């Protein structure tokens, strides 16, 4: 387990961000964590339940399952401490480790640890570093220095979360229970006493167990992440990783002569077999240059390292007191004012509404336009020309269809079709707000148009395009009847809004 193989991003973080990272770890490795966790906790839960059931004391189950939580929460911690350092754990491996995990710390500590407010943060120290007695106390002191308060808040938060998730589950389960079960109001949320109907008691126990099973690994992971972060801060893990990477890169690119290399396989072992004392204690590099050390000392004594941080915050000096007046006449007077204000308020509201209506009346023209669906101002100016065809509405006769029919009947087929095609595009550009570019060929137009118009119009426009293409590029006139039909049907598709 080398620190280089760490699979989470190591960097000094704010405490809460570290907690978030922990939650993220639990989400990410949920399979590896929850598989052994579920097997063990559910087995224990079943055994406890059976025991308490036999003893006719179901409430005891709640207490015991909660009390022994620190014991089985060693499983997620174990899994995490391996996975974070790149070791792949199978469920079976984790399960095999369970007995030794349970033995790892004396049981009496449970009683003591149970009430600790920073349980999840201390657990890694106790279980993974394997220090004892005074050494451990000192170590904990160092670690606690600026993480303990977050760790405590973490515990409080998770206690509340636990409660919340328990209620959530309980209410979800209870939804499926027939309503006529007689439960007192006071017992709805904590249905563990003997006078509650059995179904409710069991739902309560189920919700309670599930909430613990779901949340405890999150809590443990958060504490573990907090612990990692603290050590990162204390020992500069991120710097170490970056330095190792730098040297690796340089060595591969041949920038440094390998004979210069010192043995670089610094590893940090962290595991149950006993944590080698943290690298900070493993002093091997004797000070080589006392002079350099002196320099550093002087530097560190210089001003910028003794700068004190100044934080400003506001704090209430003298809580203001509400001066209460208990004059009933005074109050009555206010009530009268209230009456008066209500009239004013109501009047203002009504006047506003009337003004709105008047405004609408005045701007009647704009409104009716909107209501009929014409935009007050189109976002883009409609294109005026399309492959040389003038499609501005002004350039077209008002009654396109009639004009085209006249041309067609006069034998002016090309002009007739051109007029129809132009007219159709012009209407589409103006009303459907499609953008037609100069570079569009007939096929492009067809594609754009089919997206916005109805099935019927699409068919019509396809026919029109084909006819237009024939006359434009093959000088071939469609059958007389077809052309006439095109002219006559034009109105039905494009003359709706004028």
């Amino acid at each position, binding site marked *: 387990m080398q620190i280089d193989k760490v699979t989470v991003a190591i960097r000094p973080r704010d405490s809460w961000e570290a907690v978030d990272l922990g939650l993220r770890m639990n*989400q990410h490795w949920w399979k590896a964590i929850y598989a052994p966790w579920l097997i063990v906790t559910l087995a224990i839960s079943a055994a406890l339940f059976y025991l308490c059931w036999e003893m006719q004391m179901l409430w005891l189950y709640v207490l015991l399952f909660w009390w022994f939580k620190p014991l089985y929460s060693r499983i997620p911690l174990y899994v995490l401490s391996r996975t974070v350092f790149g070791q792949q754990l199978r469920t079976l491996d984790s399960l095999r480790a369970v007995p030794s995990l349970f033995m790892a710390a004396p049981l009496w500590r449970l009683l003591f640890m149970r009430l600790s407010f920073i349980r999840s943060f201390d657990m890694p120290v106790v279980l993974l570093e394997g220090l004892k007695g005074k050494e451990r106390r000192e170590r904990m002191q160092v670690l606690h220095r600026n993480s303990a308060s977050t760790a405590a808040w973490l515990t409080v938060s998770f206690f509340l979360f636990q409660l919340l998730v328990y209620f959530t589950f309980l209410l979800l389960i209870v939804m499926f229970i027939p309503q006529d079960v007689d439960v007192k109001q006071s017992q709805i949320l904590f249905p563990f006493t003997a006078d509650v109907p059995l179904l409710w008691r069991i739902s309560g126990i189920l919700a309670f167990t599930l909430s613990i099973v779901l949340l405890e690994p999150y809590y443990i992971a958060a504490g573990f992440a907090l612990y990692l972060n603290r050590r990162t801060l204390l020992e500069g893990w991120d710097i170490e990783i970056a330095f190792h990477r730098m040297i690796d890169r340089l060595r591969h690119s041949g920038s440094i002569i390998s004979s210069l290399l010192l043995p670089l396989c610094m590893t940090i072992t962290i595991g149950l077999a006993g944590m080698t004392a943290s690298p900070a204690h493993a002093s091997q590099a004797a000070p080589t240059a006392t002079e350099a050390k002196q320099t550093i000392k002087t530097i560190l004594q210089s001003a910028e390292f003794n700068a004190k941080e100044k934080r400003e915050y506001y704090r209430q000096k003298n809580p203001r007191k509400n001066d209460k007046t208990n004059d009933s006449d005074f109050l009555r007077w206010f009530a009268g004012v209230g009456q008066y204000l209500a009239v004013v308020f109501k009047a203002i509201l009504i006047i506003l509404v009337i003004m709105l209506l008047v405004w609408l009346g005045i701007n009647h023209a704009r409104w009716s336009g909107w209501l009929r669906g014409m935009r007050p101002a189109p976002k883009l100016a409609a294109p005026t020309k399309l492959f040389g065809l003038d499609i501005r509405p002004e350039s077209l006769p008002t009654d396109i269809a009639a004009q085209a029919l006249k041309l067609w009947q006069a034998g002016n087929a090309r002009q007739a079709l051109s007029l129809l095609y132009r007219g159709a595009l012009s209407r589409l550009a103006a009303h459907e707000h499609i953008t037609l570019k100069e570079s569009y060929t007939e096929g492009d137009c067809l594609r754009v148009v089919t997206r916005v118009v109805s099935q019927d119009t699409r068919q019509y426009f396809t026919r029109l395009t084909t006819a237009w293409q024939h006359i434009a590029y093959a000088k071939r006139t469609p059958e007389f009847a077809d052309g006439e039909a095109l002219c006559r049907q034009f109105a039905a598709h494009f003359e709706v809004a004028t």
Partner: protein
Amino acid sequence: MLDTYREIETPEGVELQLRPAGPIVRAMAWLVDVLLRFAIYMVAGIALQIFGRFGMGMLLIIVFLLEWFYPVLFEIYWRGETPGKRWLGLRVLNDNGTPVSWGPSLIRNLLRAVDFLPLFNGFGLVTILFNPDFKRLGDLAAGTVVVYKDKETHTALVPETDAHTPPIALRLEEQRAVINFAERSQRLTEVRAAELADIVAPVTGSQGFAGIKRLYEMANWFLGKR
């Protein structure tokens, strides 16, 4: 590398790193907002009580507006912060890193009604715990994310020494590591600092405390003191 960062590229091709905020801070921010609103109701209630029924009517309107629109208006006009979020250094952003806009803000705050079920944000909490970006249902539907605000730039506090050119060109992240070291070494134990400096002895060419000093000099150089 597992991280809480969420990376986003802006249209200008620059990467943004968002740091989604987890359930605990968000719960605290929510609580602050709730308490604040509650305080307002109390004050308004007492003040309006004397106006009788008119006062009650006004109070109801105030309660309605605050319950539903307090977060929306703050998020829009304070660029993603409500008082609670500001207190805890959080802010709401659209998924693409831009400040939350009207539609999404309204969506996420109306859907709070579902997150709140069945009791005090139960559904919201469970969703947050399952979502990698710590989003509640409202955030999912609105396409928003609650993140930690970026801290103000801090100028690196590196021990003043002579600057010294590094013997080899180092990459950006490597330069950062050196500067980080220089900044933080005084908070590490001396032995540990020397240990870290020894790792890069092939670059600095010296060991132990001399190595530390060389790293300081390099850091100064990287910081532009040339």
